[in-house]
């Protein structure tokens, strides 16, 4: 009896993995949201009118039926009773498990700012969030977005496309500060400003004004902005609530070993709720990324079904497009400390930026803006910890490819595989 809490990438990865090994063991999937599995990153596309709700399905509508999964959707898992081996739902019902996966993802971090309970204030991570926001995002309205991260900027882009006036307030000194350096961020910010987004950096919202409804925001530097709609997009934190009061060890996220098992036997955790191994940093940390969530869910599923599978590790990687400008990043892109070599080729006018970071002759990170083709070769060099001595120069070529890689290594990769352990 497999039980999965959650209904996103990690949960789907687990279902697909379990069914590769065990085609009949009963699977029950519990999710607080009432929807069929959907792609969370697509909520900004939905807001911009680029996809319909129907098109947001992460797997076909009959996916769970085809895989023999019993779904309890719109049913919140409240707690795990590890002694009785059952999940307790909010309505009091219990669901027994033999193997349990916690894949509850992240929840938006909401700072303790006065007035965030007013109408017109939104977070932006779920289908319900975007549906509620879509109703109020009317052309001409004034929107403020707190946070110039991936979520904040995708929300800002969609709101501009809907004809709103958009100001983004960011505490850091640059946009996308988690993935871009100063130079890359400047290119992206200039591009977004051309599309009409206003930025207030080194600043944040300290108070929301208005009665029932938001009227404006007060900023740290004393300015006041009139505002009809506020998006809180500071970041996400692991949604570990269900592990509270159990023996499951939680740091920022749920701690797991390389089989994705938690500190409790037969209980696994995967995706944004867990702390996975970051092979670039060499530490265990929360890596809230969809590809990572799927891979962790898959490894957890295989182990739950009795196979021995190990998660070799992940690292930060992000693909984001903003008003047609693609940005692909991975690993460590602005290293601190010694022992790093940084290769850069920049052409700000053409919005081209290519930065590759090396340590001990290995690629440990990169930023590509605009010319992003074949970025995955660089990603695979990080994952495989390939010695790039002798072809470092090629790494900066916009057309970097296998032809730049020495013949033996090229043949090995193209004919036998890359050896990333993915």
């Amino acid at each position, binding site marked *: 009896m497999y039980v999965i809490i959650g209904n996103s990438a990690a949960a789907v*990865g687990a279902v697909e993995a379990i069914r590769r090994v065990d085609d009949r063991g009963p699977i029950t999937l519990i999710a607080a949201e009432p929807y069929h599995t959907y*792609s969370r*990153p*697509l909520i900004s*596309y939905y807001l911009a009118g*680029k*996809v319909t709700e129907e*098109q*947001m*399905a*992460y*797997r076909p509508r009959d996916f769970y039926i085809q895989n023999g999964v019993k779904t309890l959707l719109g049913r919140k898992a409240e707690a795990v009773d590890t002694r009785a081996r059952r999940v307790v739902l909010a309505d009091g019902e219990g669901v027994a498990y033999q193997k349990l996966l916690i894949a509850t993802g992240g929840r938006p971090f909401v700072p303790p700012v006065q007035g965030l309970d007013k109408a017109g204030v939104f977070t932006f991570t779920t289908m319900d969030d975007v549906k509620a926001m879509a109703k109020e995002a009317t052309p001409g309205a004034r929107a403020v977005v707190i946070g110039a991260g991936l979520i904040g900027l995708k929300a800002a882009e969609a709101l501009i496309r809907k004809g709103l006036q958009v100001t983004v307030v960011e505490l850091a000194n640059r946009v996308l500060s988690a993935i871009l350096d100063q130079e890359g961020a400047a290119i992206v910010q200039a591009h977004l400003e051309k599309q009409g987004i206003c930025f207030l950096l080194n600043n944040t919202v300290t108070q929301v004004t208005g009665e029932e409804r938001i009227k404006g925001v007060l900023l740290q530097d004393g300015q006041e902005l009139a505002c009809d709609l506020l998006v809180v997009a500071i970041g996400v934190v692991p949604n570990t609530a269900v592990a509270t009061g159990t023996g499951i060890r939680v740091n920022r996220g749920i701690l797991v070993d390389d089989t994705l098992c938690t500190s409790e036997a037969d209980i696994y955790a995967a995706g944004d709720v867990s702390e996975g191994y970051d092979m670039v940093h060499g530490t265990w940390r929360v890596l809230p990324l*969809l*590809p990572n969530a*799927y*891979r962790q869910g*898959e490894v957890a599923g295989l182990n739950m079904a009795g196979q021995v599978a190990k998660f070799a590790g992940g690292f930060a*990687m*992000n*693909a*984001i*497009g903003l008003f047609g400008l*693609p940005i*692909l990043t*991975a690993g460590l892109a602005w290293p601190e400390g010694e022992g790093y070599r940084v290769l850069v080729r920049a052409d700000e006018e053409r919005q081209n930026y290519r930065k590759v970071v090396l340590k001990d002759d290995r690629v440990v990170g990169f930023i590509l803006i605009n010319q*992003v*083709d*074949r*970025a*995955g*070769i660089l*990603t*695979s060099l990080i*994952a*495989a910890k390939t010695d790039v001595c002798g072809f470092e120069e090629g790494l900066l070529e916009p057309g970097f*490819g*296998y*032809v*730049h890689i020495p*013949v033996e290594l090229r*043949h090995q*990769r*193209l*004919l*036998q*595989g*890359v*050896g*990333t*352990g*993915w």
Partner: protein
Amino acid sequence: MRVTAREEYCAGCRLCEVYCAVSHSPYPADPVKAFRKSPHPPISRVLVEEQRPVSFALQCRHCTEAICVKACITGAMYRDPVTGAVRNQEERCVGCWTCILVCPFGAIRRDEQGKKVAAKCDLCAGAVEPACVKHCPNGALVVEGKGGGLKCM
């Protein structure tokens, strides 16, 4: 199944690119019409890499543990359960380029001519022999591993 290049036989003529583009155009049997009449110039899913004297064609390896399928944010990228080919359902693709970020072979291309979609080799969906292999004048492209892919990752 996948297509592999024999570097030493590749003349760098790029006919594989031409025929790949044609076979993925609205006029798969007619190169002239494919380039003249298609609403957008057709895009090749095979890429010839060249640095004289070396040249070779490269396309999707159809990995058994396909990271592009696992990483796809929309679920558009999938493995065809019948042929084993890794394919992109373009109507579900939003052109986020996560697949480009993870493909270790750099075998997925951006097609931005209409709706943005990831373009990749589909082994010519059901054809006896992929167009690139069929039209290579020098036998530099061969079909390998019929009946099951190799673990590439």
